[in-house]
């Protein structure tokens, strides 16, 4: 039995809580769902191994004597994955800092708060490593099966990357906290995480557009000019790539470096983390000193008042801001590509075909999140239900609020597109409306009243709704891509998406709670 108050005891408690949290996240507290979740994971793992077999199998034998081209591609891919890990780490650290939960209990107990937070910080690379490992495992496994066991070293690289990501995320968050204070750090940190998560992909695409006039990251990484400009084979810059390719000295440097950075981060930041967490909680329980002036006492219909309230709340939602920023950042390269196509006088047909599905996908995803916040995430349902306004009118106003945001965000892209490719713009506008409408409808079919702050966990209310939202966005994006190209093949994904939606509608709860 572990002695209470020790690091091991804290670790045991934390891991038990994390496990139950994960279980609740995937089963929403329903025991009977465990079997279907396990089945789903097995199917996912099998499918991912199949995909990995086709994608990376042919490269399994390349590890022996890597050339510069391979090192550039592997380094690029590694940086891409690591930037996503760093973004995740920023989110995890911020969540840890602002989670009230048991802080009062810990701080009022005689146990060491520093030790407790050190254990919590130590758990962060574990969760990030596991998440990345889950997606990387099929590729590593396939490479190991076809190329040899030295590929298994890539698992250690994932660990090293996770340690380094958390160490840097801690440093960045602590700097943000010291600079901006507890009230602004959460939003700033989420925005930084969104930018980091998208930045590398976007930079690669921008470089590809500016250099080669296309959106292909692979083409850029494999370009002779980049390879020629890259450092020599023995440069230290290739250490992460060499570690991934299974070279023992490089592997030791990556893992050792990660451990060292993380150890230093714990040593330096564990105490400060506890202090900042206390300040963050204190900020949550004291009124803001920030003055707001959006109170408009003006003659308006209740529907207009409702729409305005939704827009004010959406604009002040930090999670939504970071999510939306991410969506908008991903729209930047296609927008640049479009602009370059016009500027060079080249045919914009290719640009249009590329831009349309991106816009449609963004519309579907953005509408899903917004619709959840407006429809399910109503924080004062009793107030709305006791107001003298018909429930159908309330619902209509909320849908109008959601679609209004989509219109404002995506209309500029469609207008620019319409100048050079009116047909593609028309198709884009049509499918943007369809995708946004579909995602909103899915949220309506599966709505379950919840606090707005549960936004991050909205998928637990219905797995079907989550998958339906994602599948319909992808489906309508594919349909719009083919349709913008003038191809009748558009009918295939279009009909498939419609069929999926019919099935999903039939699975939705017969009686929904009225707002």
């Amino acid at each position: 039995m572990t002695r209470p108050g020790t690091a091991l005891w804290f670790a045991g408690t934390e891991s038990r809580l994390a496990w139950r949290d994960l279980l609740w996240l995937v089963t929403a507290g329903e025991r009977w769902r465990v079997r279907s979740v396990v089945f789903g994971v097995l199917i996912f793992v099998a499918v991912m191994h199949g995909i990995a077999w086709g994608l990376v199998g042919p490269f399994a034998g390349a590890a022996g004597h890597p050339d510069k081209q391979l090192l550039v591609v592997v380094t690029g891919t590694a940086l891409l994955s690591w930037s996503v890990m760093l973004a995740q780490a920023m989110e995890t650290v911020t969540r840890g800092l602002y989670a009230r939960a048991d802080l009062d209990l810990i701080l009022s107990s005689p146990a060491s708060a520093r030790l407790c937070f050190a254990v919590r910080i130590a758990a962060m690379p574990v969760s990030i490593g596991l998440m990345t490992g889950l997606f990387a495992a099929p590729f590593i496994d396939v490479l190991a099966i076809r190329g040899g066991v030295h590929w298994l070293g890539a698992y250690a690289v994932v660990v090293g990357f996770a340690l380094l990501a958390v160490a840097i995320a801690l440093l960045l968050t602590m700097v943000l906290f010291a600079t901006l204070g507890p009230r602004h750090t959460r939003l700033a940190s989420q925005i930084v995480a969104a930018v980091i998560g998208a930045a590398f992909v976007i930079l690669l695409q921008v470089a590809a557009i500016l250099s080669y006039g296309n959106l292909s990251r692979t083409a850029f990484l494999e370009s002779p000019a980049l390879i020629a400009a890259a450092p020599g084979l023995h440069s230290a810059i290739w250490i992460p790539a060499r570690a991934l390719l299974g070279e023992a000295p490089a592997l030791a440097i990556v893992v050792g470096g990660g451990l060292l950075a993380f150890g230093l981060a714990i040593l330096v930041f564990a105490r400060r983390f506890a202090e900042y967490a206390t300040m963050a909680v204190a900020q949550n329980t004291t009124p803001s000193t920030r003055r707001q002036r959006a109170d408009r006492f003006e003659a308006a219909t209740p529907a207009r008042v409702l729409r305005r309230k939704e827009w004010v709340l959406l604009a002040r939602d930090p999670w939504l801001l970071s999510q939306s920023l991410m969506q908008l950042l991903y729209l930047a390269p296609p927008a640049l590509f479009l602009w370059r196509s016009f500027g060079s006088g080249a045919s914009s047909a290719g640009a249009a075909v590329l831009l349309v599905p991106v816009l449609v996908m963004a519309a579907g995803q953005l509408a899903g999140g917004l619709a959840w916040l407006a429809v399910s995430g109503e924080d004062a349902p009793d107030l709305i239900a006791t107001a003298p306004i018909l429930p159908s009118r309330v619902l209509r106003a909320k849908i109008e609020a959601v679609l209004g945001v989509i219109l404002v965000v995506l209309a500029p892209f469609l207008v620019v597109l319409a100048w050079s490719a009116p047909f593609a713009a028309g198709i884009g506008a049509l499918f943007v409306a369809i995708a946004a409408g579909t995602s909103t409808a899915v949220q309506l079919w599966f709505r379950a009243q919840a606090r707005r702050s549960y936004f991050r966990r909205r998928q637990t209310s219905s797995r079907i709704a989550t998958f339906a939202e994602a599948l319909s966005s992808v489906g309508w994006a594919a349909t719009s891509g083919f349709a913008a190209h003038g191809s009748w093949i558009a009918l295939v994904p279009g009909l498939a998406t419609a069929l999926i939606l019919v099935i999903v509608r039939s699975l939705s709860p017969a009686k929904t709670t009225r707002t």
Partner: protein
Amino acid sequence: MVCSPLRRRAERPESLSTMRFMTQNSSPSALVIHDLTKRFDRVAVDALDLEVRAGEFYALLGPNGAGKTTTLRMVAGLLTPDSGTISIFGIDARADPIAAKRVTAWLSEEPMIYDKLTPLEYLAFVAGLWEVAPQLAEARAHELLGWLGMAAHAQTRCEGFSKGMRQKVALAGALIHEPRLIILDEPLTGLDAASARQVKAALAERVQAGATVVMTTHILEVAERMADRIGIIAGGRLIAEGTLDALREQAGQIGGNLEDTFLALLAEGRDAS
């Protein structure tokens, strides 16, 4: 001593909204519930009959699970009854819920407000839902917030507000459209003494201005001091009703406090059933 801007307003000419209400049915009963029934996995409200007079402060008491909240949620339009009728100032609340909601306000134990809005923004929103004339709404909003001691926080977001501050914002929202019937479910639970006093004063002021208050509470001292009449509900049925003196007499507790009376009547009700 509580200052009384609201009382002063009551003496001023009627607002547009109030005048509109006054031209409607001038029933002496604010609320008439007849044969009201609601069943979940068991019967929560069992053929309940209840009448609250206009301008009355009515306290609805009962043990946990007695059906108080379910009854009031049905009156507020938050739950649909299985059977029975609800009449609010002569308006059939089931047939014309919108008209009934125009004259009603609902406030629950857990104040539901928007963290990301300021109290003024929240009140502008609520006033908009009830279509209160903008100038009137703005003046009332400032008046209510000032009176509830919230003027200093009028333009700061509600996130970080204490339970008492949140409840006061919610109460201001409930009062901004000058409802004729105010329904409150345990509005004083968890409030500190100062906040509770401000809420009680606001309610007393509204009753003096002519509004009707129906409130559930577990704080018997509040019912004892504030209510004109008290109803005791158990098992979804009204087992006793009347003024405090009438209830004492019914319970054979002459000179006793409400707690003794309440417990005696509950025991009597259990024996009878």
